[in-house]
């Protein structure tokens, strides 16, 4: 924090003169001697001048020359922090777009934080270990396969436990957002956990109206976009993903969830990355911020080139 010397002098003057005035005021009120009364009154009048000057120094603001960048920083510090989250199968372009968005927002002066929300396990680790011990989790090549659906009771418990962990993590992030005024950019959210859990447990409960309502409440303050992509394109983009049937099953679940929760879906199979980004920004209602970003970039480029 920068200390303004004029304001500091103002405060010093106010504090000192107020203290002296209060002493003379006491004298004036509680003495019977007329001479002291008159002297006190004169002193009060004299010390009211530095008080006035001090007050003026504190409240006076000259017309300050500012740059548009200062105004921009001021603006980004004032607006309500955002929460944006992208969902979808691997290779759909969530992370790429999230980083692009983060760069735009950071350049505009927003305090952005990216969080990876796929794996929320916190209190669920003992259960996960149990699953491994009873053979419900196994390694298949490079991938770990969870077959929790083989045990109905375990399926229910692990689903509830992981959802509970997600809620805990999400709530903590929201508190941090409020305290630190972060704009949260979440790579995945509850939808991705539900899709994964459904594949692992085949638990119907996850799609019950009550749970759908719960997901809706969780995502209420967050703008969610579901990224969709053709399975083959996804496999080409990301080599470490499972196979086509696995991705197809997941796509169906994402499609169902986005319908149930009325979420925006963006198909990234065909379009160019910049076009998709523009569409993403449009869906988030941030196109005017993007215009502002372009304007700043143009300004910076022309300043660099000395135009």
């Amino acid at each position, binding site marked *: 924090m920068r200390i303004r010397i004029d304001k500091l002098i103002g405060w010093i003057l106010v504090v000192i003169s107020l203290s002296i005035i209060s002493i003379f005021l006491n004298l004036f009120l509680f003495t019977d001697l007329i001479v002291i009364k008159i002297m006190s009154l004169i002193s009060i009048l004299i010390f009211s001048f530095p008080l006035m000057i001090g007050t003026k120094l504190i409240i006076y603001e000259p*017309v300050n020359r500012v740059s548009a960048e200062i105004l921009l920083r001021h603006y980004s510090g004032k607006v309500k922090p955002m929460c944006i989250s992208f969902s979808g199968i691997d290779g759909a372009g969530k992370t790429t777009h999230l980083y692009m968005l983060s760069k735009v927002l950071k350049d505009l002066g927003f305090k952005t934080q990216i969080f990876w929300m796929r794996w929320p396990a916190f209190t669920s680790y003992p259960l996960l270990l149990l699953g491994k011990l009873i053979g419900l989790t196994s390694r298949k090549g490079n991938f770990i396969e969870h077959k929790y659906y083989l045990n109905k009771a375990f399926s229910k418990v692990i689903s509830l436990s992981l959802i509970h962990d997600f809620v805990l993590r999400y709530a903590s992030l929201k508190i941090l957002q409020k305290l630190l005024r972060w704009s949260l950019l979440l790579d995945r959210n509850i939808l991705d956990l539900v899709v994964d859990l459904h594949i692992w447990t085949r638990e119907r409960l996850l799609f019950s109206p009550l749970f759908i309502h719960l997901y809706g409440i969780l995502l209420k303050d967050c703008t969610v976009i579901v990224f969709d992509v053709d399975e083959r394109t996804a496999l080409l983009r990301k080599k470490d993903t499972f196979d086509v049937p696995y991705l197809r099953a997941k796509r169906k679940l994402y499609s169902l969830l986005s319908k149930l929760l009325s979420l925006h879906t963006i198909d990234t199979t065909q379009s160019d990355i910049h076009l998709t980004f523009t569409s993403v920004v449009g869906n988030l209602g941030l196109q*005017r911020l993007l215009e*502002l970003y372009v304007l700043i970039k143009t300004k910076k480029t022309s300043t660099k080139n000395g135009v």
Partner: protein
Amino acid sequence: MNDHITIDDFALIVLSAIAMHKNVIFSGKSSITLESKVTSLSETCSKTSISKLITKLHLNSLSSELIKGVCENSDVLNHFIPLISKDANKRLQRIRGLNFVNKVLRNVNYMLIKDLDIPFALLSDLDLLLYDYIELLKAAITLENEGCSIYKFRLLAHPFKVMATNCKDGTFEIDLYPHPMWIRRIVAFNDEVFKTKYFGIRYGIEVPLPAPPMDFYLAATHAWSHLRLTLAETLYLLKLSESIKEEDWFQILEIAHEWGTLDSIYTVSLVVNTFSSKVYGYSVIPEEIIKEMKKKYVLRGKAEKWLYSIKRMEFPIRFPASLAVFYSSLYGFQVLWKKGLMSALYGVLSTYLSYSSNLFLKKQDSI
């Protein structure tokens, strides 16, 4: 009710000079022979009388160029040429500024406000209302790119109200308003103003403007916030009133009711109506509208009493401090409270700040 009120000769001289310059400002027929006023002044055209006239013109946001139409004595006129040129240059700079804004802010959603579109109006700066903060930032960045310097305002000003000056194209000043607000008192939602946006012609330039009802509302509340109504504002309000349809008046009343500005609209309307009936023989604001305002505005009696106490309408008309400061701040606080404590506090602070600055400049009577 206001039959006893007479109009200041100054206003009649200005009106007749404008009428001679532009033929008409207002389509109503004058009930006073305006030409005779100009002739009478022309006969007594002296340095002292013209100097007084110029001072009054400036106080009423009018240019001294107007005297060319009222004084034919070349010796006297020559004496005032530097002053006339200064005013002419100021008006020219404003037109340049408008041209500049029109050229560079093409991609910004803005609107020109407080522009008194009457002949000889002398306005210091260009006031632009921006749709929101993003548009304001876009405008500020664009203006900075064009070489303008950006300044923030003094005490109590909104953190986003900025002024752009020293632009390449001239010495004009551009004020960027984030909200329709006078000091910190907001008088309408941006959306309410922007939904009336249309493109009108000013000095041959196509500029975005608020529709006449909204323009009337903004001009009237602005005059009230400065505790005075200039002749330029009165003439402009008169001109606007003529083009406002009856249903649009009700919209103004709704907004005024919502934002606690009924006092300004009612008092200004009374003044405009009195002026128009004295000069043109009829009230320009429909009686039904005045009745509707009376129904909604609790302190109507005080405004009427003040107007009744005036014998001569002298411009600029100074609103009584008791009405425009004391009662207005109470009424404003009561209404704005519903919009939040800060809005209400800023409303009151703005009123008193305006009053105290006027007092310092010795422009206002005490409460």
